């Protein structure tokens, strides 16, 4: 482990710096607090989705443009599961609600992970090492997935209402903070903690990190990196499914196109973070989440451009992203 002194702390400082810089622009501290919590919640959800994609790229040099399918699939599965839970979602008790959300999330993760297994086998495996074809093929896979969702659930947008106990907001002083956003931050933090623990404290995590840095060396030591990669891909897809559920609940509606929309954000996040870096993805996601909420409040029309501007600024500072991992 690196000691605190060696740690590259500058990118981490960016998140509080951005938050504090926005305070004078927004003016009212209570509005600022509301926006900041919203930004952190959105950032955490985006991180859950982006973490899988960045590992997949880092480990196998695979650029997956079809990641959005898993997001949309997760959200749509959750609508079906939650609709079948009936009284659990309408009950005002928070525990009953969480009891309904948990299976929805688990089923969404399982379905997305299973699709990930199929996707890896038929879409990704034949085109290892060919970037151009990867981009084209995964894009094709994305279209097919999106259309199949339309066949199963219909092309219209479907409401995904929050369970009763998670609606409304808490008052912190003057600032209203939505309950669900706190849940989102907590789930995101739990996923990040689990991921850090897996990557830093387990043998599999060690192999993944080693594989990201130098794949051939790990292979020459006798480990089957392709099998490891399948595992990472499935886990990444499952996380995207979980992120899709969270995103759907955050927006309260799901559309078949939501995957493609979120995908754009995810790409910005992993470019900012440095392809292959988990911590970088977290920082990138939080920055993007905060930026989207601040500019959405200040100048709504240019919200998406603000994230592109953020990415440009960061790449001018560190051309490989804040935490470059791979040498490729």
């Amino acid at each position, binding site marked *: 482990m690196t000691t605190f002194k060696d740690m590259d702390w500058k990118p981490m400082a960016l998140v509080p710096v951005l938050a504090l810089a926005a305070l004078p622009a927004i003016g009212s501290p209570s509005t600022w607090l509301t926006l900041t919590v919203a930004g952190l919640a959105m950032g955490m959800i985006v991180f859950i989705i982006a973490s899988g994609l960045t590992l997949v790229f880092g480990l196998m040099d695979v650029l997956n443009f079809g990641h959005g399918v898993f997001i949309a699939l997760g959200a749509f599965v959750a609508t079906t599961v939650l609709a079948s839970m009936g009284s659990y979602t309408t009950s005002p008790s928070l525990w009953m609600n969480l009891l309904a959300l948990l299976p929805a999330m688990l089923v969404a993760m399982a379905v997305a992970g299973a699709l990930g297994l199929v996707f890896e086998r038929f879409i990704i495996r034949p085109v290892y090492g060919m970037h*151009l074809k990867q981009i084209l093929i995964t894009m094709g896979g994305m279209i097919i997935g999106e259309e199949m969702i339309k066949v199963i659930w219909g092309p219209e947008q479907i409401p995904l209402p929050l369970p009763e106990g998670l609606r409304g907001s808490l008052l912190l002083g003057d600032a209203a903070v939505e309950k669900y956003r706190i849940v989102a931050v907590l789930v995101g933090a739990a996923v990040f903690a689990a991921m850090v623990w897996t990557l830093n404290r387990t043998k599999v995590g060690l192999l993944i990190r080693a594989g990201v840095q130098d794949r051939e060396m790990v292979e020459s030591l006798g480990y089957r990196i392709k099998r490891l990669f399948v595992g990472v891909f499935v886990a990444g897809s499952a996380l995207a499914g979980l992120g899709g559920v969270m995103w759907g609940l955050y927006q309260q509606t799901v559309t078949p196109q939501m995957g493609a929309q979120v995908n754009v954000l995810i790409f910005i996040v992993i470019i900012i973070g440095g392809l292959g870096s988990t911590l970088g993805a977290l920082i990138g996601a939080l920055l993007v989440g905060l930026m989207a909420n601040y500019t959405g409040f200040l100048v709504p029309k240019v919200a998406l451009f603000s994230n592109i501007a953020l990415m440009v600024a960061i790449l001018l500072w560190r051309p490989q992203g804040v935490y470059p991992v791979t040498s490729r």
Partner: protein
Amino acid sequence: MLQRLLSKDLPRSRWLAALLVVLFLGLAFAPFLFPGVKALNVAAKILIFVALVTSFDLLLGYTGIVSFAHTMFFGIGAYGVAIGLSSVEEASWGALLLGVLGALVVSSVLSLLIGLFSLRVRAIFFAMITLAVASAFLTLASQLSDFTGGEDGLTFSVPELLAPGFELSETPLVTPFGEVNLNGKLITYYLVFLSVCAIFLTILRIVNSPFGRVLQAIRENDFRAEALGYRTVIYRTLSNVLSALFATLAGCLLAIWLRYNGPDTSLSFEIMLDILLIVVIGGMGTLYGALIGSVLFVLAQSYLQDLLRLAGEATAGIPVLPALLTPDRWLLWLGVLFVLSVYYFPTGIVGKLRERAVLGKLKGLK
């Protein structure tokens, strides 16, 4: 003469050459061979797609970089003409020209910025960054409704010579295939036709120049091209700018033909997918492929969707099939076709035909 016109890049296959001649003649005389409003619209759409797809092939097929912002430049061209012509009382050639020039300037600046920025950092970022920029631009275009007409788009009139009301002669020309109205729409068709021919031949000239050879060298092995002393960033960026400019011109032609422009007609992501599919089906890295692909694709899009509807009606009793076989699921079949052609058909139609020609020659030598 023909050699020079085609920049010494001949079809190199007898079947391909015959197909190209048929397509060229068909498009050149389309208003007389296939009279009727729908047929003429399809022919014009084919022509505009030929220009759009050849400009994309310069980037994807010859330089080997994937851009998802090509429809953005297409849209800039269309919006340039639309804004230029709808901001004046009386449609004039000056306003049209101003719109085209304005669009070209915007496109060149934007493509230069995107290219220099993202290609300098890492070529692989390019696809992701262009996707982000294009989707931001699409949102912007539908939100700035004072300027772009928002979701409704802009309807405008064209200079009198090109307007459908302008009559060359009172009586329609009678041909063996039907009656042809000699009006402004016909003149517009030939304006589009000649412009597309010029764009096609110019791009053909570019890819067969020493500059084009460097682009292909970068596609095959960028490290080696750099080692040979070519600044790959400069070449890639130039290729990006050139392709953006030609896409802008194609967009201008679209707006002139339709006399309307909105986000869905020129900017939508679906058009981007169409372009990708056409390049892959026709054959990446051959401009003739872009031509053949465009013809096949636009014809399929215009007429096969009806077939899909019939198939859906025929299978009405079977449980799953009707949901899959409706014109609404057209994109699904497009996606399947796309994936299959990248797997099994990577050189496209032109590649296959040329392969056959080479094999035939080898057999003859034996």
